[in-house]
């Protein structure tokens, strides 16, 4: 692949229509799922996509969703409590 724009275009051409490319970070391909799917169906779609990208573009590509932040309000408020000796 000559540059990241090329890679991005190639990935977009391969992605299932239910997925959208968010960004590429090194070998990590971050996508979003555009419609509500069951846990199993969504997982299968993503893993199949990774296999396809690896086969057609680069064997080291990995597919991820954006990470989800902690929803526990208490932990969120108190996280980072430090110890002053």
């Amino acid at each position, binding site marked *: 692949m000559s540059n990241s724009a090329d890679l991005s275009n190639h990935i977009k051409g391969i992605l299932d229509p239910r997925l959208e490319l968010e960004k590429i970070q090194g070998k990590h391909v971050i996508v979003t799922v555009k419609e509500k799917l069951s846990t199993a169906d969504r997982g299968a779609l993503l893993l199949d996509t990774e296999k396809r990208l690896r086969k057609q573009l680069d064997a080291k590509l990995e597919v991820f969703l954006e990470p*989800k932040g902690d929803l526990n309000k208490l*932990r969120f408020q108190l996280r980072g409590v430090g110890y002053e000796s």
Partner: protein
Amino acid sequence: MKAKHVPHNVVSVADEHAGMILDGTKIDWHLDRVKAWENGERIAPITIDMALTRACQYSCGFCYAMLQENDRSVITQEVITNFLEDSARMGVRAISLVSDGESTLSSAFEHTVQYGDELGISMAVGTNAYAVTKPKAEKILKHLTYLRVNFSAGDRDRYAQIMGVRPDAYDKVCQNIRDMVAIKKRDDLPVTLGIQMVLMPQDGDQILPFAKLGKELGVDYAVIKHCSDDEYGTLGVDYGKYASLYEQLREAESISTDNYDVVIKWSKIEEEGKRSYQRCYGPPFLIQISGSGLVAPCGMLFNERYAKFHIGNICENRWWDIWQSERYWDVMGYLGSDDFNAQQMCGTLCLQHKVNEALDQHVEGKRKLTPASGTQPLHINFV
């Protein structure tokens, strides 16, 4: 495959203290299932580690659960009843209520412990014990193989700092532990009671107070373990700094008596978060379920980020159907294939680490698993 259930009264911690394996794996006591896996059979997990909720009233600084957020569903009593019945039917041997939430906060908690035991599944709990009051302990202890209290300090004020609660939580939890110890002694229960410290390198001042507190409270053991981190080092655990704590850890071990073990998970601490293997063979034997009901091969893959590994949700589908699905076995196959590299794609020191290590050496022919012999270890079904 028929499950072989080991009744709680077969072994007692009072008689067999030396038989407790906290820093290793018991997979060689389950070679029937290893053999079936090698033959390509779709085996049931030996052990399931799960939570009944993702909620927690504590906010420990090292809590890995903050990295495990995923779409939340509520595990109701009906869901867990179906789940337990499916687990017993398929041959699951043990369920530990630990994972990514404080299961004692679930309204289905007591039912889960009691019904799981009635179905012949060894049950265990990891908890901060704030909600395990005497009446609750009276109901659950007789059904448990072990109950482990997460207690990552020895001093009252440091407990509050490290675990993110008010200092009086320390007093309440200590009393709850004393009550549990008294109930166990009164009824001569085989349940093992322990406390666990997740040691962050900067909290080394609490090693000895923690070890001494366990002795004073009268629990069977106190275990000190490393802190896991994700592949990006989000929690900031500096594994190189554990070495400076070795002297204190050895001193803590020396506090052990005939009735009280201080156990250091040396093997994991000394490995400094490194793995000797690339394939992940452990999940078919030891799978994890989030407090949201999400079935994933490993707790480190609970976050939405890793949705490609998410297999199903017990709040959406029956556990039996999830286990039988092609999706379940596709994911397991992928983790054990050349496409997966745990050294590069995983966080540090996962729950399956020791099982993975043993299975990898077995598959590679470096150390073949052989039928275990000698005295059966405690908590045998918790691999």
